[in-house]
């Protein structure tokens, strides 16, 4: 069932200075809630992505904490005020300690 989570992001490549841009992210992950039981009646242990951060040029500007109530293959959209060119780093933190990362460049002009 569990394959390596693959992040997908949608960020505009260019923006005007001061423009507020929308960023959409999606990552494949089963988000096992810890509430389900297997056929033997044993609780399936929780394994979710519990944290998401979005940084621009190394500075975090948006953070999300997710509880088991977040759907599988979590989608997250949010905004960013473009001021200068640089690079986004998005990070998803798994319960098992893994961190999945994705990057995107933004040109402001």
């Amino acid at each position, binding site marked *: 069932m569990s394959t390596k989570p693959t992040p997908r992001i949608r960020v505009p490549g260019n923006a005007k200075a001061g423009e507020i841009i929308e960023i959409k992210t999606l990552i494949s992950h089963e988000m096992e809630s810890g509430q*389900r039981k297997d056929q033997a009646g044993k609780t399936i242990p929780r394994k979710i992505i519990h944290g998401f951060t979005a940084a621009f040029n190394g500075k975090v500007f948006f953070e999300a904490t997710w509880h088991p109530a977040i759907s599988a293959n979590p989608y*997250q959209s*949010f905004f960013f005020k473009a001021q200068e060119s640089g690079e986004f780093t998005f990070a998803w933190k798994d319960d098992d300690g893994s961190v999945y990362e994705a990057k995107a460049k933004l040109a402001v002009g």
Partner: protein
Amino acid sequence: MALHKAVTRRDAFALPAIGAAALMIAPRLAHADAAAVEAEIRKLYADRKPTDGRIKLDVPQIAENGLVVPINIEVESPMTAQDHVKAVHVFADGNPLPGVLSFRFTPESGKAAASVRMRLSQTQNIICIAEMAGGALHSASANVKVTIGGCGG
């Protein structure tokens, strides 16, 4: 195979009925309630009282599939260094656990708005609290009717 043949038409109807009854009772055994949500909010903000307004909480009135319920939150704010939205927390009073998510915004966010998709195990209230940089708290809530629960039974 012999077992299958032994099941009469009457039994065949009765079995799913028991299953359905169990499903209806199951969510009631363990889920959060309004008090649990209040306790969570108290953990964060003690006795500080939120006021209504400034939050646009966008959830469907009726969710056909509780496994994937879109939620969009937007808090009115100029998002300057002095006056911006610091955090948003969302709770659900009918899920096994009251917490849904927390967001942290910065002035660089430009806009205190974000969307996710959540799981709702049954019809319930969604409660949203926003914390402003100045310390003010705002709240909003909405009821979502869920036709198929999203807890994986």
